[in-house]
């Protein structure tokens, strides 16, 4: 057999080789910092494009009672570990206080009764998980804007950070603790709620009792559950691994509009 391959046979072999190289190479590319940095640049483009077409007043669709999911799926943590949360649950959250601090004029400490006494909003909206499923639920809560105005947002504040009670990952250094952040555009959106009711009853534990976030124009992992404290910051790089949230620290987009 000649070692000089006919041109066409050579080209076929080259094509087959390139194909298998491509398949094997994709996993290496996915772990290459330069490649992932380029891929991640699409997030900013997506956010700028979506923010350009969304007005501050564009509302997520609100459905009717007839559209409710028969079962609203619980995802992530369904029961936070630890004695602190167990004690809160035991007291039926009477000992729970929402601490609002950071870059605010007046730090607040609100009980569940205080929060329920504030103006409320009820909305039937669709919850979209990053995995692909959706569930429709009826949420009642106080618009985040009401609480933020009460506390007085400092001029240099840019993000609202939600500190949660649940550890979604076991860790010794606290990096497994759930947290989330949104910017002021979403924080002051009329459908952005601190919700304490789902489908007309107190928020069940598996859905984030006593209080969870609803930020309806983004995906499910932004809707922080088991909120213990809210902090206004000018940057979230010092928190967790610096990406602005539990899942963001694990590679997911901070802007989860798609």
């Amino acid at each position, binding site marked *: 057999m000649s070692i000089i391959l006919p041109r*066409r046979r050579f080209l076929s072999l080259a094509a087959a080789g390139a194909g298998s190289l491509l*398949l094997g190479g*994709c*996993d290496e590319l*996915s*772990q290459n910092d330069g490649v*992932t940095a*380029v*891929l*991640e*640049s*699409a*997030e900013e*483009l*997506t956010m700028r494009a*979506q923010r350009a*077409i*969304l007005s501050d007043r*564009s*509302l*997520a*669709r609100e*459905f009717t009672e007839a*559209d409710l*999911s*028969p*079962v609203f*799926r619980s995802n992530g943590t369904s029961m936070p570990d630890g004695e602190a949360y167990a004690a809160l649950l035991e007291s039926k959250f009477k000992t729970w206080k929402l601490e609002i601090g950071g870059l605010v004029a007046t730090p607040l400490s609100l009980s569940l009764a205080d929060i329920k006494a504030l103006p409320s909003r009820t909305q039937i909206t*669709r919850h*979209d*998980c*990053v*995995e*692909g*499923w*959706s*569930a*429709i639920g009826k949420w009642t809560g106080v618009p985040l804007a009401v609480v933020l105005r009460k506390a007085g947002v400092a001029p240099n504040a840019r993000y609202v950070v939600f500190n949660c009670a649940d550890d979604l990952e076991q860790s010794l250094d606290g990096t497994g603790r759930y947290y989330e952040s949104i910017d002021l555009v979403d924080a002051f959106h009329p459908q952005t709620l601190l919700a304490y009711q789902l489908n007309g009853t107190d928020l069940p534990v598996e859905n984030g009792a006593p209080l969870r976030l609803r930020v*309806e*124009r*983004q*995906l499910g992992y932004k809707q922080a559950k088991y909120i213990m404290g809210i902090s206004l910051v000018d940057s979230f790089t010092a928190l967790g691994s610096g990406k602005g949230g539990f*899942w963001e620290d*694990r*590679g*997911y*987009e901070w802007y989860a*509009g*798609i």
Partner: protein
Amino acid sequence: MTSLAEIPDRAPSRTRRHLVYRHGVATRLTHWMNVLCLAVLLMSGLQIFNAHPELYWGQFGADSDHSVLAIHATENGDTLAGTTRIGPLVLPTTGVLGASKVDGDLVERAFPAWITLPGYQDLATGRRWHFFFAWLFVINGLAYLLYGIISGHFRRDLVPDRDQLAPRHVLQEIRDHARLRFPKGEEAKRYNTLQKVAYLGVIVVLLPLMVLTGLTMSPAMDSAFPWLLDVFGGRQSARTIHFITASLLVAFVIVHIAMVLLSGVWNNLRSMVTGRYAITPEGPAA
């Protein structure tokens, strides 16, 4: 950009095999960019699908709701069995769908590692690939549409000519395709009717449908354009249509590659690289 026009002086004879300039540079560049984008979008899309391998119809859909398609693994003794359920129909798909091998071991995953990007299970990275290439795909597609309209490429090369729409002509083409007899001579200088309809179907129907159903899965896009939900009947319907349309594109690509192979692979490849396509004269002597 005179595609399908003859190159002067290089086709001296109608009786000899000669080259014509078939594909303009814009067509060729956008074609190959599209190949790259669709390959990455398909593979990363299957990675994303694997995160929740069920499809629903309507506004909502999660585990306890009725699904129209589900790809899962079930325990079968001390091994796994992969099943694919389409409506009421349950198919055993062990080895490919539901359960497939990773490093020699059968594991639960809807689509197998060799067709997802990345190969290992990683939704976050799959999404990064998907949205970066979705942007590239849209920009590339818009550039192609703009070129196609302005240059007259669509009107001249893709819209079927009047004579090509005669039922007799179409029937003859179907017979010729079935016998793998491809046009020669003058007739080979234009796309045949089936080709034009297939290309237009992809360009005008399937690819825009991919983009629109993709956007309908975005909660932000649904807030900006609530009509998307009415057009597709909900986010979960849009997700199902996205999957079906992707499957139709895969079917198109399979037929497309088969036709490229059957009707002269080197001639077709050269024409999509250099633009030049060889015309074989008609007649038994050729």
